[in-house]
């Protein structure tokens, strides 16, 4: 396949005939200024050298097939666009965006392997157990050929498993001993011999009870122990932010927030924790920034609303924070009103936040 520039072959016999006549029709005068001696009509004809009918047919068939493809395209483009956006978000560890984008893909292609696999990763990092379970069911029997994706799924599964104790009676045993720090610590130490997931879970559960009893130093020590064996254990880090804040170790609290955000840049509850930490040390401008960031990411997130309500309260925006408290109460319906109570106690002056 090639293109050949040819003027000589047509010119070879013309010298014996008439140099001023067209090489092709041999009757009309040539058009000057071109390498091939052709009259205007013949030149026009060769410029529009006919395309055979079978080529037209061939092109029409290709165009028709293309048209069918293009007709189906919008549905695929939109889904593929959202999938690409989600994959990009997973790479950037922006798991909330990834989760949202993947849900859009799965609306149209519920069985898509890549979307379900990435949803499992994103929802695991967002600690959304319902979604991760759905995604897991959809990929359980399927082969994942992409090694990186497979490794990422395995890590996410470990993350999920670390949230559930193997010993289902564990919480009950700790709860029975909730008034005795000694007994609770004994349960923890006993589990420490096994060095399994239950140990971290028990550690955080006990630390949470100590936190509720305002025993922040004890909670801090216990969480530090947990983090010695599993330095990135999310529930321990999450609780430690609150502990450090109440111990007035604000920089450390912020450092822990940043450590978690390095693994999930869109962890709304942690951004909200950052806001509350800054608010507690009276850095209201920063607190407002973080609260806005959390609200921007998910305006329905209860922790985002809490931080925004507190920012509004300290900025004397009564209507705004009251509206948010009502919204929080609606979100809490059917569960414990922990967050709304926490804010109201501050607003009513029963608890001094700062």
């Amino acid at each position: 396949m090639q293109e050949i520039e040819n003027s000589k072959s047509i010119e070879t016999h013309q010298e014996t005939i008439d140099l001023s006549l067209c090489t092709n029709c041999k009757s009309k005068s040539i058009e000057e200024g071109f390498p091939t001696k052709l009259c205007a009509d013949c030149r026009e004809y060769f410029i529009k050298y006919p395309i055979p009918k079978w080529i037209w047919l061939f092109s029409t068939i290709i165009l028709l097939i293309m048209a069918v493809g293009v007709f189906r395209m919008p549905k695929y483009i939109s889904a593929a666009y959202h999938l690409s956006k989600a994959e990009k978000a997973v790479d950037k560890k922006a798991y909330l965006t990834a989760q949202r984008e993947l849900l859009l893909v799965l609306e149209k292609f519920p069985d898509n392997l890549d979307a379900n696999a990435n949803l499992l990763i994103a929802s695991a990092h967002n600690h959304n157990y319902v979604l991760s379970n759905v995604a897991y069911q959809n990929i359980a029997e399927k082969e994942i050929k992409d090694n990186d994706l497979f490794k990422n799924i395995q890590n996410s599964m470990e993350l999920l498993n670390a949230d559930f104790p193997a010993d289902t009676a564990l919480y009950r045993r700790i709860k029975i001993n909730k008034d005795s720090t000694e007994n609770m610590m004994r349960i923890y130490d006993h589990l420490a011999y096994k060095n399994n997931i239950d140990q971290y879970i028990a550690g955080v559960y006990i630390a949470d009870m100590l936190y509720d009893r305002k025993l922040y130093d004890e909670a801090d020590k216990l969480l530090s122990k947990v983090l010695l064996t599993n330095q990135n254990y999310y529930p321990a880090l999450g609780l430690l932010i609150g502990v450090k804040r109440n111990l007035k170790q604000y920089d450390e609290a912020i450092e822990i927030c940043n450590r978690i955000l390095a693994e999930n840049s869109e962890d709304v509850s942690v951004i909200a924790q950052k806001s509350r930490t800054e608010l507690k040390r009276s850095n209201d401008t920063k607190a407002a920034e973080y609260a806005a960031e959390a609200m921007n990411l998910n305006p329905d997130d209860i922790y985002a609303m809490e931080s925004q309500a507190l920012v509004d309260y300290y900025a004397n925006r009564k209507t705004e924070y009251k509206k948010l408290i009502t919204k929080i109460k609606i979100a809490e319906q059917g569960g414990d009103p922990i967050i709304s109570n926490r804010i109201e106690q501050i607003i009513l002056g029963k608890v001094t936040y700062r």
Partner: protein
Amino acid sequence: MFIPGIIISILTFPGVIVHELAHQMFCRWFKIPVFEVCYFRFENPVGYVIHEPSKKGYQTILISIGPFIINTVLAFLIAFPAAMQFKLDDPNFLDYILIYLGISIGCHAFPSTGDAQSLWESVMKTDEHTLFTKIIVAPIVGFIYIGAIGSFFWLDFAYGFAVSLGLPYIILKFCA
């Protein structure tokens, strides 16, 4: 695995037809008379276009590399919907046809050594073109020859696959 080029060309004949048609269309757009077109045949070269040489350097270049532009764009457009289907769902018969067409057309995007030779002779061996045109043409001819050598290692096929199946994802990733 060595497969004779003629067999590959027969298997991917839609690409050859588009390649020759692209040369012809560029000639038509630049008002260059075309004297003969062979869209496909079972011998080497599998297709060719005989046309009057252009006096303008850019036209000579574009006529030579026209198939690279047209085949690439067409391969991408044809394969794009099917590539999306491959990513999202189980592909059907139509998708395989579209991918086959895309790859066939894409793998004949590279100008042939005949195209390079013609470009070299019409620009470098005559005094009709400026030094600037010659500076532009020299590396193009070099690239065409590199492509021709690469096609021995299936570079033309790799290009067809990349344009048909890789480029759609890259563009989507870039836009997302």
